């Protein structure tokens, strides 16, 4: 009998607890959240941080029966400032009717000025520590503009501009290779390296920033203000020191083994850029050894690809011809890689990880050279670049069109 009473008492206690629990603490209703898809960080004139939030308007994005997609933009922009990132984020609550939710923030944009003057090391900690913010977020530097301008721009095709930036970076890394999609985690890892070197992609707003914010920018078939991927930012000791474009950019991405496909133009028999060699996959290895206290590095890459365009009359059915083309392509690639290395040496940034490779394989030698690596040893480093290029296929045709024209008209 007493047992029954005690049991029921416990049950009662538990049910009361249950009732109390319905005022549950960590509950976040969907309608109480504002999804931040991109965040821009700038420095204001008085040295504080200004955050710009790109918030998704669910009703205008999903395209449901509401159908109000053309009336108002799919994203809304709010900004707030504070002495550090956490303060700015909390201050923004005064302007927004909901709680900022960072779990879906896929993009962080940092203004160029901030990156040059203060560096990005300070910004990393709050994002790293917060459980809601993901370290798989992509990082982008605003090239010649402020982060706010970049975040405010509306884009055609992709309703959410953050998606456009991310997808552009992803595809251009895969197809052209002059840009790099980096996540926070990767940036952190590279900034922790001895020289504090990192590579981050840049994005530029082409056109008028005021125009970019307007919805009727999208009403034209060729919008006046667009976003485009532009350049790779080079960081040393956490500060932005240089931008890489074209050859050095692609070469750097290549040496980092991050390139997937690109087009190499090969000169052929006097005609410049006569062949288009489309690479499909590549593998690059970096190794380093120390002989008598002097380091020697070597970069070896192995590329495979197809012929995309042949602008000279040439018969590609001959294996000997293909071999010559492969050699020519290899030479072009080697030139590009060497340009990239030279550029890095001029900037005195070891972005390719030679130092880290030395640390991994010969830690004792590394200890001796560590302190002067960036300024003394790296710029004078002898790098031996070897390229193996293979042309596997030539598309649907073998001889080029011009060669049959040439034959016919002879």
């Amino acid at each position, binding site marked *: 009998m007493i047992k029954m009473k005690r049991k029921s008492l416990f049950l009662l206690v538990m049910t009361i607890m249950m009732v109390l*629990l319905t005022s*549950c603490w960590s509950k976040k209703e*969907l309608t109480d*959240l504002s999804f931040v898809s991109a965040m821009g960080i700038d420095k204001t004139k008085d040295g504080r941080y200004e955050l710009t939030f790109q918030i*998704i308007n*669910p*009703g205008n994005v999903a395209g449901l029966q509401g159908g109000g997609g053309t009336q108002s933009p799919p994203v809304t922009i709010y900004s707030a400032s504070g002495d550090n990132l956490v303060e700015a984020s909390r201050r923004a609550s005064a302007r927004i009717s909901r709680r900022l939710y960072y779990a879906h923030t896929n993009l962080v944009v940092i203004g160029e000025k901030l990156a040059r003057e203060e560096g990005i090391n300070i910004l990393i900690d709050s994002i790293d520590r917060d459980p809601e913010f*993901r370290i798989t977020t992509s990082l982008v530097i605003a090239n010649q503009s402020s982060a706010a301008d970049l975040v405010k721009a509306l884009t055609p095709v992709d309703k959410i501009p953050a998606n456009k930036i991310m997808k552009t970076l992803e595809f251009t890394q895969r197809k052209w290779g002059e840009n790099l999609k980096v996540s926070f985690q990767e940036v952190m890892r590279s900034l922790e390296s001895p020289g504090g070197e990192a590579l981050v992609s840049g994005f530029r707003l082409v056109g008028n920033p005021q125009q970019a914010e307007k919805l009727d920018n999208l009403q034209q078939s060729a919008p006046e203000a667009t976003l485009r991927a532009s350049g790779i930012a080079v960081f040393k000791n956490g500060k932005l020191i240089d931008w890489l474009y074209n050859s050095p950019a692609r070469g750097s991405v290549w040496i980092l083994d991050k390139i997937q496909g690109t087009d190499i133009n090969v000169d052929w028999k006097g005609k410049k850029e006569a062949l288009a060699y489309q690479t499909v996959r590549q593998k690059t290895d970096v190794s380093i050894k120390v002989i008598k206290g002097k380091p020697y590095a070597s970069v070896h890459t192995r590329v495979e690809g197809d012929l995309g365009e042949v602008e000279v009359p040439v018969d590609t059915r001959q294996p000997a011809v293909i071999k010559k083309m492969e050699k020519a392509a290899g030479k072009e690639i080697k030139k590009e890689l060497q340009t990239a290395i030279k550029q890095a040496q001029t900037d005195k940034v070891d972005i390719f990880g030679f130092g880290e490779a030395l640390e991994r394989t010969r830690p004792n030698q590394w200890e001796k050279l560590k302190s002067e690596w960036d300024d003394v040893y790296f710029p004078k480093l002898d790098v031996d670049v070897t390229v193996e290029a293979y042309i596997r296929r030539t598309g649907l045709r073998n001889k080029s069109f011009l060669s049959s024209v040439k034959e016919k008209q002879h």
Partner: protein
Amino acid sequence: MPSFFKNQKSKNKLQPQADQTNNEQTVSSLKNLLSENLTLIKEKTGNSSDIVIRHFKISVNNSLAAAIVYIEGIVDNQAIQDYLLQSLMKDNQKNDLNDQNALELISEDIVTMGNVSFADNWNDLLSSLMSGDSLLIVDGINRVLSVSTQGGEKRAIAESTTQMVVRGPKGAFTESIGTNLAMVRRIIKTPDLWLESMKIGRVTKTDVTLMYIHGIANDKVVKEIRKRLKNIDIDSILESGYVEQLIEDQTVTPFPTIYNTERPDVVAGNLLEGRIAIFVDGTPFVLIAPALFIQFFQSAEDYYARFDIATSIRLLRVFMFMISLIAPAMYVAVTTFHQEMVPTTLIVALAAQRESVPFPAFVEAFFMEVTFEILREAGIRLPKAIGSAVSIVGALVIGQAAVQAGIVSPAMVIIVSITAIASFATPSFDMAISARLIRFLFILGAATFGFYGIILILLMGVGHLCSLRSFGVPYMTPLAPFIPVSNEDTLLRLPWWTMRRRPKLISDNKVRQSKHQKPEPPSSRGMINQEMEEDDQNET
């Protein structure tokens, strides 16, 4: 139900005393005089209008008065006419009957019916009268002969309505226990199939029969079941559900520990695995004990189909069961606590839907689930013609209208429909009912603590399941404790030629089939007639 028991216990203390006095009085008072006996019978049955008393005279010169008493409707009238009355009234010339030897002579020589017995007290007399026997009372003898003439209208053997299969025997049990027992006897023809009958229920005196295969079934379990059945002291057993709830191991659990079925092949299959079947008169649902958790996900068809399809469908069923348990809870948990799990595009779409809905996700889920339960319950009672139309109309229209009115979001409607469909995939109705209840518990857990709440309730459920026993066998055998040998028939169903042993812990008699059962046909070529004509081009 609990108050029901309380009343029983207090009544119990009163009844036996009254019975005893009755007995003492009446044992001796089966009167000698026919008329007195008949009057007493009429008195005890309150002069019920369906009791037929047929007077006639027997013996040489029609000197001895006798009567047959039976209850119209539960007897086989033809049998009474043709065998009883005929033999008594017409063919009795040869015997000289007097009130000393009348009953013995009649039972041995005259009556041509199969089942006869003597009754000398009122209890036995009335109970056989109520079961459909005919009582032969002879003037001057204080015993009666009760002749088994059970008959009357019974339902014909029809198709099973609750456990349908595509391939397999279609007949299902009926309400008459005799027919049911016979149906199983027809499948299992071994003399080791033993039956034990008893009458349970003080007022209803329902026939309950225990059936098992001697040598395969576990004797200890048989003894235990017999003991528990004998211990039942209730006034009525209307359905096997009463018996189930009175003999089960643990009542405080949503999970059934005794299986029930209305198919004879299922009963036969379980008997062959060493289980025991309990038949209750008046219901086609037969109880099977001991029952394991995994049994409630098995259907008869699994054994008739081939092993690959049977395995996949069984896995599908378990998967659907899990979905029907946690789908609404997962939705609530993900949209209220763990929004990061969902891909961005989907969460934006969900957020857009929820903009127009006034309630939090938990209330919405709860509301939709309750509505669905109401629809389901109502759908059972609707007449067949309207039934299917209304349920479809109800679901679609109400759901659609609710979405348009902005009361629920479309995603919720989808989730609830998926849950409902998944819950029908469980073959056993009892398990499906448990799932319906537990689902609300999960939703509650999810609403208060998101995923953590779901996990906690899952842990509690698993712990609870693992602590149950069904007649001594752990409920979750053979998954836990893990007996690899018996696992060939749980979530998977390996080909018949691999299942050589009976489930351990249920039966000691291990070997079900011998080795070498794997089909090994000779190579195909060898089986074809090789007589070819000369110009036959096709070499097979």
